[in-house]
């Protein structure tokens, strides 16, 4: 293999260079690869719709093994399927699926946020789900085109340092943080998917100008920039910042690991404030899925009461299937006066990124 491999790659290099040199675009370089894949890579398994799924199913999970590994194990035991899971970051996996093209071995994409699912849907890579699956969750928490479904919910909150602040010190709207008294005290994660979903919601509800003005207002307060929610919580605990814009459940995990002395708490913004957006982690089936019926079985399994209770108890997220209660310490989903928004409106990430960049944040 060692002797033939460099030659094959050398040939590929030549072909790619040639395509680039001839001014061939990415799209003209891609199709040339198709005959190769169909000949050797993945013989598509014909599936009869009624039979119970068999064989193997490949899941690309943007949610980590420590979160969903136990669920996958239960699914494997319940169905007897050969379940393979590739764990990595949600955006890395969505980029991988796009690079793989039609040769993707993945059946299901289980994403941390709706934005990544939207990016794949926009490229036509997600297949339609049956209504029976979609109808298990509220209309707010699924794709209007029916190509992905929300599995668990996460609320945007403001986390604060209990050593220097009480909830009474905090503004009741996310808009309040543009006040100069917050200068140098805010931590945020502008590259984070959940944050960007929030900015997109802002744009949808209040318009681009208002969203940009808010971003510029926060930027003027010299916020500290972090890579993710988790880093923000660590920074609050370390006293780098006093407040941070995060998802609700990161705090619950820190409390579980570090105990109640962890000096950070969440504030759920009241009155339908934009800052209280509820986003979802969700899943969809790829159009190129080698085993779509098994993929369907996995998504349905995520929406069983048992799995939904798992999310409530183990990841501290909100179950989305009606009738399954959330962690008692959380404000119930129904009581979060979340802004009235359709999550599928949050697909314009490129526009949001552009706005964030125009505001000089990134």
């Amino acid at each position, binding site marked *: *293999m060692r002797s033939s*491999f*460099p030659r*094959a*790659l050398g040939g*590929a*290099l030549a*072909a*790619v260079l040639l395509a*680039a040199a001839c*001014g*061939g*675009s*990415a*799209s003209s370089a*891609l199709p*040339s*690869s198709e005959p*190769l894949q169909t000949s050797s890579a*993945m013989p598509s398994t014909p599936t009869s719709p009624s039979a119970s799924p068999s064989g193997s199913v490949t899941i690309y999970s943007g949610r*980590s*093994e*420590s*979160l969903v590994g136990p669920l996958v194990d239960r699914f494997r035991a319940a169905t007897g399927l050969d379940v393979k899971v*590739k*764990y*990595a*970051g949600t955006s890395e996996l*969505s*980029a*991988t699926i*796009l*690079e*793989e093209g039609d*040769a*993707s*071995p993945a059946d299901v994409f289980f994403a941390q946020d709706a934005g*990544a699912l939207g990016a794949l849907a926009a490229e036509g890579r997600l297949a339609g789900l049956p209504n029976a699956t979609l109808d298990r969750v509220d209309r707010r928490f699924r794709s209007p085109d029916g190509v992905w479904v929300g599995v668990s919910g996460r609320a945007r909150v403001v986390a604060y340092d209990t050593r220097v602040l009480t909830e009474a010190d905090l503004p009741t709207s996310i808009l309040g943080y543009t006040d100069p008294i917050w200068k140098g005290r805010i931590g945020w994660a502008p590259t984070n*998917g959940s944050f*960007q979903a929030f900015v997109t919601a802002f744009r949808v509800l209040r318009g681009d100008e208002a969203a940009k003005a808010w971003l510029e207002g926060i930027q003027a307060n010299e916020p*500290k920039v*972090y890579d993710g929610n988790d*880093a923000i*919580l*660590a920074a609050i605990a*370390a*006293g*780098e910042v006093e407040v941070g814009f995060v998802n609700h459940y*990161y705090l619950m*995990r*820190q409390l*579980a*690991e570090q105990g109640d002395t962890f000096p950070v708490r969440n504030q759920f913004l009241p009155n339908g404030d934009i800052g209280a957006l509820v986003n979802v982690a969700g899943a969809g089936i790829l159009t190129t899925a080698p085993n779509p019926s098994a993929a369907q079985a996995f998504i349905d399994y995520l929406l069983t009461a048992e799995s939904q209770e798992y999310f409530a108890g183990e990841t501290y997220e909100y179950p989305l299937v009606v009738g399954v209660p959330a962690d008692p310490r959380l404000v119930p989903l129904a009581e979060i006066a979340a802004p009235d928004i359709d999550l599928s409106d949050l697909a314009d*990430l*490129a526009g949001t990124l*552009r706005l*964030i*960049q125009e505001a*000089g944040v*990134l």
Partner: protein
Amino acid sequence: MLGVESLRRGRPGRPPRDGGRGAPAVTAPGAPLPLLVACLLIAGLALLPVAYLMVRAVGADVAALDLVLRPRTFQVAASTVALALLVGGGTIVVGVPLAWLTTRTDLPGRRLWAVLVAVPLAIPSYVIGFAFIAAFGPRGALQGMLAPLGVERLPSIGGLFGATLVLVLAAYPYVLLSTRAALLQTDPAAEEAARLLGDRRLTVFRRVTLPILIPAIAAGGLLAVLYALADFGAVSLLQFDSFSRAIYVQYRASFDRALAAILALMLIALTLLVTWGEGRLRRRAGAYAGPVRASRRPATVVPLGRWRWPALAFCSTVVLLALAIPTGTIAWWLVRGVSQGAILRFAADGALNSFTVGAAAAIGSVVLVVPVALLVARYPSRLATIIERATFTGYALPGIVIALAVVFIATSSVPLLYQTLALLVIAYAVRFLPQAVGSVRTALVGVGPRLEEAGRTLGDGPVRAFLQLTLPLLRPALVAGGALVFLTTVKELPMALLLGPIGFDTLATEIWGAASEGFYARAAAPAAILVALSAGTVALLLRAEERPR
């Protein structure tokens, strides 16, 4: 042998050709065709990511280009250059004295220090970064200790200062190890002669030892700088805008592969500039490159006298910052998690997988590096330089870029290899090849072609003469290069995640899987195993290096 007088001049005037090692080679001056073809293939493999990036960049829409080609991008470029320069300078300031102290002096506990100061090479920069925030943040552990003295908060350690500090601590071992190897390989005769001629110790170091070390320092510094360029973990934790972070932002925030590709190509341009600078430095110091070690005896030990205390303080500070604080943080995660009842999982699979893939990548790199180093050392030419530089192009790219390039190339041209261990190993071997080039090239220059020529006059073929006579002499350099590749591979994350076979956990993916969700206690066990595995490797490496040939 190089004359002592010419060494004592300090700066090279006219570099004597061939280091005075006798007549030019008997063999034809042109490189043998099979060697050239092998090198071109290796360079082709290393350039594949560039080809991929060009394909992707062509797909960018023109309006989006405005976003990339705006003043902010040039600010990012400027801060990246600043970071690279500071990390380069910092790793030399830390690495060179440590190398000298642990090889040439009577530093108390010299062998132990030698291992301790090299181990941080294996600690992922994001672990060091995280530890620093926890320890030195405004309300970190240090503030907690100072609180009784009325210290409410400390200044923030983020930004350029924090990023430089963490990356210097993560990357100085590259300078340390290459300088150490050079100190052990060079003949102490010149230094001794200079001493006998009455030069003071410091003068000897500055005018004799340092010029000999420049190629090794430059080679190590190059790896450190490129490490800083590619790093994502530390810069993102410490909120510093480098190219690497800007590239991730494109993937993460807008799923835009075209803009990411354009930024990555700009980063490659910067990489070429850095390798060019290193090449210039190396050529200017060429007069002193790799004097043959004629004597088999060890260098005389320099007694430190009262200087041993500052020397010990220096070593302790480096070990405290680069090793004790990160490992202490890992231990603290473990203790805190266990006391709160967290469930720990033993990472036996991950450890075995990390070891396997690391060892295979190390062997692969060493196999690939021999022809490249041979071409550069024996048949220097413009083409040879280009081939050597080509192997560096991918080295400074963030792992995610290489991983996506390999995904695209493999699925479209060699689908059978996709998500196999073989592909992962080949990708690592090619990507980390530059870490082995420097040491092997230096060793080859030192060994010279005369032995082989002698073998050939006795009737050996060229390949046989090389394998039997030269290769054994390269062993220490091959071991050193392979060990570097091993250490870097075991801590690598994005390629392991995306290119590994499904279900293939390594220590790095286990740490990531737990820490990314805030389960630090679960991350602690694999992190501790990673550090232990690496410490063992470093100890073996140093033993192999000090063993007389």
